[in-house]
């Protein structure tokens, strides 16, 4: 009886029943929904990957905050706070630019810390980015809502500290 039990244990640990026999350490994610047949010819493959590669939570961020036409999208000139898994745990700054590349979408925040200008680029689909909070938007005519910027990329703020402080003054008030 004991030998029969040992045999059963040995057989259950055999490689014939392994999900992927060519690599023991390979990661096997849960099976996605069956893709449409046209994708096998490559028709619409990259847009399909852009929609399915990021996790559902990140995809929601990409569809609302980082879309081109959503009413709640982020506008350059808004002030954001990003919460990360690793140091620095939080970083706040003015949104200088959004680089839209589907799963590879990223944005740059600029802040002045201890009289030193600091810029950080964050990738939306990175597992380290936990949360993005909007401190002040940039869609309105000024004051609490923040002024609408006439550019998509605000790299001119690197050369004008007075404009940077004007944006940050609006938050403090």
């Amino acid at each position: 009886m004991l030998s029969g039990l040992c045999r059963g244990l040995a057989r259950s640990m055999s490689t014939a029943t392994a999900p992927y026999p060519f690599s023991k350490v390979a990661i096997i994610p849960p099976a996605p929904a069956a893709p449409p047949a046209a994708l096998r010819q490559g028709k619409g493959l990259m847009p399909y990957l852009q929609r399915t590669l990021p996790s559902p939570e990140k995809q929601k961020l990409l569809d609302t905050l980082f879309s081109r036409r959503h009413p709640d999208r982020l506008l350059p000139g808004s002030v954001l706070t990003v919460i990360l898994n690793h140091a620095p745990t939080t970083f706040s700054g003015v949104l200088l630019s959004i680089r839209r590349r589907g799963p590879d979408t990223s944005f740059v925040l600029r802040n002045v810390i201890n009289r030193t200008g600091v810029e950080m680029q964050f990738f939306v689909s990175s597992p380290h980015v936990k949360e993005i909070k909007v401190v002040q938007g940039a869609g309105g005519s000024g004051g609490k809502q923040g002024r609408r910027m006439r550019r998509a990329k605000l790299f001119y703020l690197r050369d004008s500290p007075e404009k940077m402080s004007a944006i940050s003054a609006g938050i403090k008030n």
Partner: protein
Amino acid sequence: MIRIWSSNARPSVSRCRNLHSTVSANAEVVPKSKKPVPKWTPSSLRTGVIARKRGMTAMWDDQGARHPVTVLQLENCQVTANIMTHRKGTTPYHAVQVAASDKSVKNTTLTMLGHFKKAGVQPKRIVKEFPVTPDAHIPIGTTLSAVHFVPGQYVDVIAKSIGKGFQGGMKRWGFKGLRASHGVSVSHRSSGSTGQHQDPGRVWPGKKMAGRMGGDRITAQNLRVVRVDGSLDLVFVKGCVPGVDDAHVLIKDAKKLLVHTARHNHAKALFEKVLPKGVDDLPFPAGTKELAEKLPPVIIAPSIRVSNPFVPRE
């Protein structure tokens, strides 16, 4: 009388038959018609596949590091011939001919139509052959799949580079050109002198000059396979691949980091280093559509780093 001298000479053999031992209980009945399953060896060379470069994106591994990846898709890649050329005085040449991307009958020449009919496949746009070892031949008509490659292994990707047209020395060869000012007239980007003086009195053949740049066959070596999608026949390789999007590329096992290291490490008896870290075996002779149906649809390679780069070291 006790026979002490005889008990040492003869070994003691059990008089009863081994009915209940684990050896006979675990033994499986081997059917007589079972063929030996072909297995990859460090001295064997597998076929490659033909794919299409679909584009680039980025992926984050399990440790949170970002890797740029190129998406390559196999478009009905089938084996059309097994080539075995035996010539006197040379080693026999073995190759597997592979074709991909279906094409309509009306656009295919009669010669090629006959060739594809003999192989029993649809007419294809591109036909290429890959040299293999004699044990790596594949039945004609087999459809190759993305599961031919194991996430974590290294591949070489060959494609025609983007054509740049007629280009000058600075772009084509990296010449420095001439100064922007200080009397330089009308030749800021020129190549300058093309030779010496009366001796040799000519320009050496092969002198680097302006000319057509790009559109050459380029091999990107040692690209790591990061993700394999069996349902869509996608191979995600880390890094860049030559050519434009939707161009045909050839994907083979990396000559340096897979084929040669396997051979060298096997010869040095370093059996753990024969295959790259995380790769236990390779589908042999090839990863087919039938194999892809048995395996999970998506397989991702883990990070090869020992330590997490985002965790500060003490």
